[in-house]
């Protein structure tokens, strides 16, 4: 019992209504009811929080201010100071990013005959994949079909999804599950070997393949081990800070920066796979995030500067259930699996206010409405408001011990702070979770620039304007594999010219011409800055010459 006394009063109300709510099912909202709810309460619709891009391939398209600042940002390097004739790595395929998409791309590129280098900003496997808990979708049960998975996906995405990408997603899904098992992933199974599958928000079938609530961790630790077993080269703490392009505009490598020493590494590659993940650490509109430390949209910035088109950059996913209490885990993911298993969302009075398995944007908007317009949220000591996710319902519905068996990560995480989620409800509020859009790709993961491929959260189109549960850990493997294979094939016939940073020169010129250069930060961001600001006492006349080199990059 670790909730403050005044919150305990609300817990009593939740307990008092539980028996009645066990028999209560709220209806799903109609399309007509969803639209005004989203427009009034979803953060994507808040006026003044987005702006049209002033430069680049998507000039005129809206995106959150935090992303626009970086997309319109200045390069970290002066092309005139860099000697590109001194090449450190010369490979067929360079994969940028060490998460699920990057690892899949590296494995498939190598299988297809390419000499591969994987570069990652933090460690191999430091990524959003490891934090994915609920599962991976694949239509493999007899009452399910690729078509139903397709329909659920485009309905969740507000019918904006790119059809060819959705087709690839649902068609590859069963073989992705099998591929992962062949590599040694332990799926939750019934004793007869059939998959133990669960439902999810916006899914009309039980289709989530999980590994308890450590699904992404299980997937990532296996892929990372396989990369090591196959001797695929990788460099860690090496952030890509620009792509290289030739005179025909083809991408032909990248410049990496050692995060600790700032030393630059020049990689020449016949093809590059961008797999840099998402943007949660930009804290759009001040939201906390579920994302890992390095989720700063670097790949978007690099690709955009090199001329790649982006798509759906005006839609972000706020996961409905981030932890609102205790403060140590504020904004961290409370897996949707908690709702999948039967937990309802209830307000301070113990009253249900939304069908818990609506798509994520709808549930997030309903929670925000409950706390703002209706004033039915619960205030916590940090000032963060939240509503209840009534986890004790799970054992009542599915039998004692279900919470412990299916949700060990959640039990452990809340147990640390004295909250037993099998007996007490969890306080939650929406948290910044996922970038629905990204770099525009085709079904092979090819971007609009020759030689550049993209996979995983940094690409967009497959999820339309809202991603469903379990479709992201599917996306990373489907498009990671496709992009890796396509990049290897491309590298066999590609004839890249001399690597240059001419696109960076052109970019800086356009920033200077439009007067933006002095108003925008340096990008990519690489890491968020959470350290307490230490004042800079350097006299201004020495500032440029004496600044530590890290600050020059930053």
């Amino acid at each position, binding site marked *: 019992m670790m909730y*403050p006394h005044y919150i305990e009063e609300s817990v009593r109300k939740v307990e008092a209504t539980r028996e009645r709510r066990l028999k209560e099912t709220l209806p*799903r909202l109609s399309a007509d009811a969803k639209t005004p709810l989203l427009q009034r309460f979803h953060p994507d619709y808040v006026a003044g929080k987005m702006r049209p891009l002033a430069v680049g391939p998507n000039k005129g398209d809206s995106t959150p201010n935090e992303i626009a600042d970086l997309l319109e940002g200045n390069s970290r390097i002066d092309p005139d100071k860099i000697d590109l004739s001194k090449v450190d790595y010369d490979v067929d395929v360079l994969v940028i990013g060490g998460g699920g998409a990057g690892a899949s791309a590296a494995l498939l590129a190598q299988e297809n005959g390419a000499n591969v280098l994987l570069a990652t900003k*933090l*460690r191999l496997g430091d990524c959003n994949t*490891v*934090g994915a808990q609920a599962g991976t979708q*694949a*239509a*493999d049960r*007899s009452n399910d079909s*690729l078509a139903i998975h*397709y*329909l*659920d996906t485009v*309905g969740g995405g507000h*019918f904006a999804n790119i*059809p060819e990408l959705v087709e690839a997603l*649902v*068609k590859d899904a*069963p073989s992705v*599950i*099998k591929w992962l*098992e*062949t*590599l*040694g992933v*332990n799926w939750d*199974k019934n*004793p007869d*070997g059939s*998959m133990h599958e*669960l439902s999810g928000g916006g899914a*009309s*079938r*039980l289709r989530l393949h999980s590994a*308890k609530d450590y699904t992404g*961790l*299980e997937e990532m*630790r*296996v892929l990372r*081990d396989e990369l090591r*077993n196959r*001797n695929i080269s990788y460099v860690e703490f090496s952030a890509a800070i620009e792509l290289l392009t030739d005179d025909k505009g083809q991408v032909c490598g990248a410049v990496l920066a050692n995060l*600790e020493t700032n030393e630059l590494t020049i990689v020449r590659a016949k093809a590059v796979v961008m797999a840099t993940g998402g943007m949660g650490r930009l804290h759009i509109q001040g939201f906390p995030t579920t994302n*890992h*430390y390095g989720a700063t949209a670097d790949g978007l910035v690099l690709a955009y500067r090199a001329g790649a088109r982006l798509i759906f950059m005006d839609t972000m996913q706020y996961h409905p259930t981030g932890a609102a209490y*205790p403060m*140590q*885990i504020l904004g961290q993911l409370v897996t949707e699996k908690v709702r*999948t*298993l039967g937990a309802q969302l209830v307000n301070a009075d113990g009253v249900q206010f939304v069908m818990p*398995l609506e798509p994520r944007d709808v549930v997030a908007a309903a929670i925000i409405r409950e706390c703002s317009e209706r004033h039915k949220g619960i205030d916590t000591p940090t000032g963060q408001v939240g509503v209840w996710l009534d986890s004790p319902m799970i054992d009542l519905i*599915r039998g004692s011990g279900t919470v412990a068996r299916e949700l*060990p990560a959640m039990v*452990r995480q809340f147990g640390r*702070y004295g909250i037993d989620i099998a007996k007490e409800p969890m306080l939650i509020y929406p948290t910044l979770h996922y970038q629905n859009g990204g770099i525009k790709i085709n079904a092979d993961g090819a971007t609009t620039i020759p030689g550049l491929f993209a996979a995983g959260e940094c690409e967009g189109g497959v999820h339309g304007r809202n991603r469903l549960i379990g479709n992201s850990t599917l996306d990373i493997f489907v498009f990671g594999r496709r992009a890796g294979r396509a990049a290897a094939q491309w590298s066999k016939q590609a004839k890249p010219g001399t690597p240059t940073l001419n696109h960076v020169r052109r970019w800086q010129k356009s920033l200077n011409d439009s007067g933006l250069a002095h108003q925008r930060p340096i990008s990519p961001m690489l*890491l968020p800055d*959470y*350290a*307490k600001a230490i004042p800079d006492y350097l006299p201004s006349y020495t500032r440029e010459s004496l600044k530590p080199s890290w600050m020059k990059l930053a």
Partner: protein
Amino acid sequence: MAESIRMVDIYVMGKHYAVPEGLTILTALEYCGYRIIRGCGCRAGFCGACATIYNFKNDPLLRYDLACQKTVEQDMFLTQIPFFPAVKAQYDLQQIKAAGEQILALYPDIVKCFGCNTCTKTCPQELEVMWYMSDALRGDIREVSRKSFDCVMCGLCAARCPQGLVPYNVALLCRRLYGRYLAPLSNHLEERIADIEAGKCNGDVERLKKADERELRRLYAERDIEPAF
């Protein structure tokens, strides 16, 4: 709740700081002005990057945890362990057998375990590391997989093992062997893959790809929904 914020005294590599109560070790370091490059990953207890060792001002006993999850306490002495090299056997999973002897063949040093239980006491996930190491010695792949499943591979067990063993990599080998060879096959998955490869699933998806938004909206609204439980 207008209580004033209580401060906690901590020591970062020996230097004293006062930080607000309720911070984690990771956010406390940042509060003190440290900009973390190594030793920070998912910030949510899943990736193992921020494995940390600490003790207290007047209590030299070492404790172990994840810096992103552990709340700071009065008189904590903190340090960072940014990197720990560990042995990993190299193998082709498709070419080896799921036999108990396989573990010993790839990790012969596990016989050196003398049961001190330091690994178990070190594990921030509170796993029974020493017990699964004895399961590994007996060649019980299934038990190692079961007991080690929640491992975040932070490496603290290997960092502290007086015999230089790497329990977390031994466990990963066992889980991969279990998933690949010992878990019962899912026939419905195999059948669906065969149907897709035979082109039996193309028609319905083709129709949906060609459908206009109005038609898709109608089909979506009319689809039947399987009960969640």
